[in-house]
């Protein structure tokens, strides 16, 4: 399937090492809500993005969305992971992946970082027609 437009978005979660914030580094299993407001379009809504640092050092991200569409939509998402210096961590886990959004059904995305070096991430979600969501948040609360 060919995607005529892309990008979306979403977030950058900082679990420590943020030079612009004095917030303490969350310990393992601390959950950080990345977005507080819904984003999306009339058919696809991203309701919640949260992340945590697991006790073994890997980051875990969960995205909850809902489809208001009358038809099935084939969404794709990609998560780019960054180390504490802001450099991308090259990994097969950063390739585009498919997530199905069935008509009037919720959907979720679950991902883990490719390495324990991951400190932040950026999430992109796209469908074949348009940008679904364009929002960025530092994540720390």
């Amino acid at each position, binding site marked *: 399937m060919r995607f005529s437009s892309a990008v979306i978005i979403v977030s950058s979660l900082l679990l420590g090492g943020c030079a612009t914030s004095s917030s303490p580094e969350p310990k393992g299993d601390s959950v950080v809500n990345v977005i507080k407001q819904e984003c999306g379009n009339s058919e696809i809504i991203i309701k919640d993005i949260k992340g945590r640092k697991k006790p*073994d050092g*890997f980051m*875990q991200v969960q995205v909850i969305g809902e489809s208001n569409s009358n038809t099935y939509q084939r969404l794709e998402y990609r998560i780019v992971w960054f180390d504490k210096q802001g450099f991308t*961590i090259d990994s*097969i886990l950063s*390739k585009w992946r498919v997530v199905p959004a069935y008509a009037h059904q919720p959907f979720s995305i679950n991902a*883990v970082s*490719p*390495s*324990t070096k991951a400190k932040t991430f950026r999430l992109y979600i796209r469908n074949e027609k348009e940008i679904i969501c364009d929002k960025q948040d530092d994540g720390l609360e």
Partner: protein
Amino acid sequence: MGLDYRDFQAAAQEMIQSMIASGAVSKPGGGKYVLAVSSVVNDTMQHIDTDQLVKKMRVGLLRSGKVVVTTAVSANGAEDKMAMQTRKELRGNEEFKQSTVAKKGNMIAPDLSLSGKIIQRNIKIDRSTQQVEYYFQMTLTDINTGLAIWEDEQVIGKRGSNKSVAW
């Protein structure tokens, strides 16, 4: 209707993520596991180089920082045969400074073994259409205990004309 690199990539992505998320590759107390790659059986009707899948998984696991892969042990003997052969041939060879030759007892035995199987199922949808399902099944075994500490299966389905189905 056959498998292409995207299918191997998708399967490897899911497998690596599943393995990391399960915590199976996180060694209690820290450190890295040593992984040996066992066999991945191709039980399909196509010629598949299973290394396409295994290599992607190996790279992903290595980059996780939790696993190192041994090339000295595999289902078919040493994967890097020259490395093994060189050790033996150079040991005692007067042409080589023996202090620079790999010593006995230095190789690290694997903790884990990765094995798997790819299965194909053909399903007739109607008179002109068939669906081919490929099942990627992988298992991570703790060599010390013989217990499977992680297993997963990914299914990739493809639909097309009867004429294009490879039996």
